[in-house]
């Protein structure tokens, strides 16, 4: 059967079987909370939570798991970092392909706390021009934020080189789209903050994500509440990871995420299939492709538009005629669309999964070839 789901940048589907199995075990058989008590059920569940944290650290290239904090998704993680870093009366640099999960908090801070934000120098596909970064640094620049892999054209940014160029200025990397698809080396790249989600490239369930913070002392918590530690105090504990984990975590989600991390999926399609597939799409005369200029910086998603129809009409026709599921519009990234010249009309996004086969790509390609008129 053909896999017609090409909306994996919104959320991945299908998931490895073990995701549902782990979640079922927690909900139907094990139960129990994280910490807070000492009976066997709690110990077993808490062990799973900490094993998941360790596995995530491994996946992120982090040697100290205590610097990994669970949150509900990448948006929650990004907000915790952006608001927790106490930005006011300062300058922030961002990539030209940022998502609203970054730009909306910054816009709020611009209006309420007198910050300014500016877009880093870049090429037409949004790839940051690292040679020009230093010209944009100011003495009041307090943070640089970079979307590692664009959720619109799949362009992957050179994080290690960007960090080298900005020196001691902290960097926040949004890993929402790249984690699970691209190798991440947080320690080696000297990253200060990174936000991620579990339900996209990692193939876990929704509602579970998190962040990495290298120096927790520089960040205030966003949420305050019970942690099962220092309960006599009315203040949040200062130690990790409790400082940022108020309230009962999404334990079922953590179980599911472990199910995904234990069963990493290799792509069923080869890189040569993907390259050929994109070349063939670009040959279709009525389709325009939005992708990375250099194939080396291309992640497994990109956008397309039809010359004669708008993106919503195009996406609707893809589904009604061929059952192909895509996302049309601005993808919550108006800034990225402005950079790519597709604002305000948007694009149709094609986002692959490791479960796609060369036959699935062929089906999509052949469908597109039959869409001269809708």
């Amino acid at each position, binding site marked *: 059967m053909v896999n017609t789901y090409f909306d994996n940048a919104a959320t991945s589907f299908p998931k490895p079987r073990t995701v549902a199995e782990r979640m079922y075990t927690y909900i139907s058989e094990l139960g129990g909370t994280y910490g807070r008590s000492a009976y066997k059920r709690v110990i077993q569940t808490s062990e799973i939570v900490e094993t998941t944290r360790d596995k995530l650290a491994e996946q992120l290239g982090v040697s100290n798991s205590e610097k990994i904090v669970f949150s509900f998704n990448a948006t929650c993680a990004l907000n915790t970092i952006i608001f927790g870093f106490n930005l006011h009366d300062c300058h922030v640099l961002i990539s030209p392909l940022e998502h609203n999960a970054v730009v909306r908090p910054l816009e709020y801070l611009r209006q309420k706390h007198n910050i300014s934000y500016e877009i880093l120098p870049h090429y037409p596909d949004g790839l940051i021009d690292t040679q020009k970064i230093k010209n944009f640094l100011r003495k009041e620049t307090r943070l640089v934020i970079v979307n590692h892999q664009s959720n619109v054209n799949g362009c992957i940014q050179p994080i290690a080189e960007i960090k080298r160029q900005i020196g001691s200025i902290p960097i926040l990397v949004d890993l929402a789209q790249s984690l699970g698809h691209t190798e991440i080396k947080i320690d080696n790249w000297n990253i200060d903050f990174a936000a991620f989600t579990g339900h996209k490239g990692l193939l876990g369930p929704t509602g579970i994500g998190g962040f990495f913070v290298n120096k927790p002392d520089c960040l205030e918590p966003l949420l305050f509440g019970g942690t*099962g*530690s220092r309960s006599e105090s009315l203040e949040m504990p200062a130690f990790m990871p409790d400082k940022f984990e108020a309230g009962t975590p999404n334990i079922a989600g953590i179980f599911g995420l472990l199910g995904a991390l234990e069963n990493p999926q290799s792509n069923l399609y080869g890189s040569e299939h993907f390259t050929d597939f994109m070349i063939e799409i670009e040959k279709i005369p009525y389709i325009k492709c939005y992708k990375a200029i250099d194939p080396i910086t291309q992640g497994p998603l990109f956008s397309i538009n039809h010359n004669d129809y708008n993106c919503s009409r195009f996406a609707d026709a893809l589904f009604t005629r061929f059952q192909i599921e895509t996302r049309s519009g601005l993808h919550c990234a108006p800034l990225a669309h402005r950079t790519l010249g597709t604002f305000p009309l948007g694009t149709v996004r094609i986002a692959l999964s490791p479960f796609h086969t060369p036959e699935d790509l062929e089906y999509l390609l052949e469908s597109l070839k039959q869409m001269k008129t809708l």
Partner: protein
Amino acid sequence: MSHLIALFSTTRNAMKAQKLCKQSGLTCRTIPVPKDLSSECGIALEFDFSDDQKVKKLFNEERIEADFHYAS
């Protein structure tokens, strides 16, 4: 004194210590943090007093922070 009780600042540290003890063949029991020792609502580990030195040596080597108390 018949027992050594180890208290931890976080659930993570308690789980880490418990796993380590299991791997090292040290018998321990997870108990709620005794109210006469702390107002915390977390997990503590209880050891037989005869393992006192072994436990402390192991935690020291593995850099696990714990507050030790004795109970009868």
